[in-house]
């Protein structure tokens, strides 16, 4: 079974703090993705990576950065958290470098920025 784990289920941070969200997959997947899910807006892609040290901007990259130093780990960084970044953050991975390949999602991190 594919397993995608995220470091925290719930996180509360203050405005201006630097926030790290970690994601690990155990199936040697090539691609990893970070989304945020907001009510009425669905899933929106923040960043994705198709190889170690590679990253591509998604639809809403502003205010975020990412790091992929190892194949199994993909980190999302909020350099200076703001209240509008309060959201559910979902990490996903897929095996093949094909957009049609199934994405496997982690359980999500509910981030609240006060």
């Amino acid at each position: 079974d594919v397993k995608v784990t995220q470091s925290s289920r719930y996180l509360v941070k203050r405005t201006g703090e630097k926030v790290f969200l970690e994601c690990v997959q155990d199936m040697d997947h090539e691609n990893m993705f970070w989304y945020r899910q907001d009510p009425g807006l669905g899933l929106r892609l923040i960043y994705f990576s198709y190889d170690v040290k590679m990253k591509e901007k998604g639809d809403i990259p502003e205010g975020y950065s990412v790091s992929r130093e190892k194949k199994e780990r993909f980190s999302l960084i909020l350099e200076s958290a703001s209240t509008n970044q309060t959201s559910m953050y979902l990490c996903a991975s897929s095996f093949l470098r094909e957009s049609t390949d199934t994405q496997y999602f982690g359980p999500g991190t509910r981030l609240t920025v006060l």
Partner: protein
Amino acid sequence: DQQVKQNSPSLSVQEGRISILNCDYTNSMFDYFLWYKKYPAEGPTFLISISSIKDKNEDGRFTVFLNKSAKHLSLHIVPSQPGDSAVYFCAATTNSGGSNYKLTFGKGTLLTVNP
């Protein structure tokens, strides 16, 4: 610009009846479509997909229909069960290769199946 639209935020059906969830898209480059299902406090899980070379794909109780001329797809669940109650996301992508591995998701439809 919303390229994948799920215009019904919610749908309520009776157990045993058919559930029909709809999805429209605007980008004519999309040629592969997926449905994901999400329970509260869990990540989405893949449900079923369809390529634009087909107009129907079936997997057990779940069938996806694609109408390319109308840029419309629908997910049918027959018979609906209370365990099907979840948010359903429609997603689309282009199977064109290159470095575009992204999916574009709709806003989701909350399905409630009443016992």
